[in-house]
């Protein structure tokens, strides 16, 4: 039976001020976690309304311009306020120093600043709701975004501010990984989660500034009509697309790379097996980060860009898929001859392998120019990126959340509820989005408020799927909240993992580790060491 560590970062020191001005990475991470879970809830509710509206071909519950505002809000919230900060800023903040044996991140004040910048950016972005909403889609394409009368400025300015929060986190993580690894923690003994966060941070600092300047240009275009994106004034709306995707395609990897990091941790822990192909997985993260900057044009195969550019973007797009495949195969090989158990986090890891494989493989249809011409801007694309973002990142995030929950709170959730919820999420997710692949290849365009009758049946299936998915999430909300009050104490190491973060008490002490912390074994040395489960 595990014990609950009485003196921990949650209660030492106490008082509201000790939270608001905390420099402790764990508290900042927890505040991030609270914020992003709130936005996940809001974004998810909006998704349910969208799916309900699409239950029937005609207008159902909201008007067309409200619908347009809802899907814009859903995209903007989920991307800028949930997925991008989810794993790095929330879980990563708590775990990165623990995983490399550090007492904190390298630049704690910058870390706190990034949280406040995040809150400010979120408030500015959300102000757009009360000032009329935004109806451009989260991609803000010009000239629509520079001419519509909706609240584009507050939303884009919010995203601009959020970008700084993301940059600050990225800088912090890179410096932390370079400078604060404990003695003995060499680059190739770091947990793969840290490699994932590191590669993510590299993209964050390289890509986000370009988005920042793009959004500034868009705001200036709206306020002063500077003419850069305005075809009537000698500008070019397609230029905006280039700028936008130069950030936003790498941003996809900002979202998925840390998720892949989590999966490496989950599969090794619950298979009690040394990771297969450590270097292949680590270098594939860097390879993805590098190639991700050269594929943005695959969003623009139908925009009229030159055939030569389309060819180059297409071929690099295929190359960027290879490292993801390598990861999948290495994870599978890790399970070989393991001692596998199926607690909730492992279920999410297996779900990830299933859904992310679909997400990655359907990318083949979209990377190939000839088939992309047909599928571009249809529901096929919607399904594809939900399989990558939700089937990939969110499943990994949920796995990570359940995996480290006992470490963060010191208490276990109800395991049976956890498994039921995971299965509901799996069934609901596939039922929601598999029909959308078919709808898309049948020709249903995305961002459609109404649709023609022949798409009706599959839309019904998809909407019903969204209810099952929602049921899974509500169950999760219930048992996670309950666990905070009457969950069983977890002890240091409820899963018997060899990760460094499991060697310290749960919840974590304010100083993370004792001063005499030694590097005794690598995070995946299951062939040499057995760690006792504390539950």
């Amino acid at each position: 039976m595990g014990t609950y560590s009485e003196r921990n970062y949650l209660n030492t020191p106490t008082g509201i001020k000790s939270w608001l001005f905390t420099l402790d990475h764990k508290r900042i991470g927890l505040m991030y976690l609270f914020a992003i879970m709130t936005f996940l809830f809001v974004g998810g509710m909006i998704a349910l309304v969208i799916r309900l509206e699409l239950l029937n071909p005609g207008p159902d519950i909201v008007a067309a311009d409200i619908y347009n505002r809802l899907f814009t809000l859903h995209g903007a919230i989920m991307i800028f306020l949930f997925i991008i900060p989810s794993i790095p800023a929330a879980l990563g903040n708590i775990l990165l120093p623990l995983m490399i044996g550090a007492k904190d991140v390298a630049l704690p004040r910058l870390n706190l600043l990034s949280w406040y910048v995040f809150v400010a950016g979120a408030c500015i972005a959300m102000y757009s709701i009360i000032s009329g909403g935004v109806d451009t889609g989260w991609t803000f394409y010009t000239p629509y975004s520079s001419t519509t009368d909706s609240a584009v400025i507050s939303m884009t300015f919010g995203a601009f501010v959020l970008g700084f929060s993301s940059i600050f986190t990225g800088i912090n993580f890179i410096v932390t990984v370079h400078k604060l690894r404990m003695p003995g923690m060499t680059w190739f003994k770091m947990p793969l989660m840290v490699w994932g966060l590191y590669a993510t941070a590299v993209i964050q600092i390289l890509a986000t500034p370009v988005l920042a300047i793009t959004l500034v240009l868009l705001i200036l275009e709206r306020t002063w009509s500077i003419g850069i994106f305005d075809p009537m004034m000698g500008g070019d709306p397609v230029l905006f697309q280039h700028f936008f995707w130069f950030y936003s395609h790498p941003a996809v990897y900002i979202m998925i790379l840390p998720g892949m990091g989590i999966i490496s941790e989950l599969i090794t822990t619950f298979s009690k097996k040394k990771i297969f192909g450590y270097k292949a997985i680590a270098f594939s993260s860097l390879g993805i980060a590098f190639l991700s900057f050269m594929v943005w044009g695959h969003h623009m195969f139908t925009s009229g860009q030159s055939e030569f550019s389309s060819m180059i973007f297409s071929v690099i797009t295929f190359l960027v898929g290879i490292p993801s495949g390598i990861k999948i195969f290495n994870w599978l090989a890790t399970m070989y001859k393991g001692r596998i158990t199926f607690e909730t986090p492992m279920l999410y890891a297996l779900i990830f392998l299933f859904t992310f494989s679909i997400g990655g493989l359907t990318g083949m249809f979209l990377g190939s120019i000839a088939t992309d011409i047909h599928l571009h801007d249809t529901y096929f694309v919607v399904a594809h990126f939900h399989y990558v973002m939700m089937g990939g990142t969110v499943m990994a995030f949920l796995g990570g959340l359940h995996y480290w929950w006992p470490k963060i709170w010191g208490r276990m959730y109800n395991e049976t509820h956890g498994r039921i919820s995971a299965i509901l999420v799996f069934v609901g997710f596939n039922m929601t989005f598999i029909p959308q692949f078919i709808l898309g290849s049948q020709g249903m365009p995305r961002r459609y408020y109404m649709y023609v009758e022949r798409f009706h049946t599959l839309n019904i299936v998809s909407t019903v799927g969204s209810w099952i998915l929602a049921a899974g999430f509500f169950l999760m909300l219930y048992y996670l909240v309950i666990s905070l009050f009457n969950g069983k104490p977890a002890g240091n190491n409820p899963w018997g993992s060899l990760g460094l973060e499991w060697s310290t008490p749960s919840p974590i002490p304010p100083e993370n580790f004792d001063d005499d912390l030694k590097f005794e074994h690598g995070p995946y040395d299951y062939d040499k060491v057995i760690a006792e489960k504390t539950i």
Partner: protein
Amino acid sequence: MSHPAHLQHHFSDSEQQYESSKLGMWLFLLTEVLMFGGLFCAYAIFRAWHPEMFYHAHKMLDVTMGTINTVALITSSLTVALAIYSIQNNRQKDTVRYLTITILLAVVFLVIKYFEYAHKIHLGQLPGKFYTYGGIEEANPHLFFSMYFIMTGLHGIHVLGGIAVISWVIVRTKRGEFSSDYYTPVEMVGLFWHLVDLIWIFLFPLFYLIG
């Protein structure tokens, strides 16, 4: 174990703390370069589309004023370097003096920029829809001035930011917080100021000296 006042609890020694701050600053400067990089890209595209217009529009800029500004900024880069050199040798008074000169040069830069802007505003050589000047024959001359005002404007904001952080470092130096043992903030604002200078070194030929 000795524990200097400036050393934060999570670092094991001053060296590690200094290295961390420096790496962090370089990464931040990299993001600045990339942000301006986006604008340079836009500049390159529009110049490639309208080479004649850019050539004629650039004649509206005052090369003399631009040159004075360039000299002012390069000199200020020198003084900021001297300030760091002084603090490394524990000469706090010299540090304050050099940093003050740096700020004065930055103010000179901004005053000259103000006169340039005022002249352009007077003539209506303005971005986008505010453009009313009639002296350039090629199409879309407002695009040149859009790029000019955005890029020099963003740079100007950085000069203002530089003045603010240098003032803050002056105050702290006067309080005696820095010495040859610990002068990281002085060096960091120095790095930032060099970047501000460097960006201007690119802006100057791209706008004032189109051949």
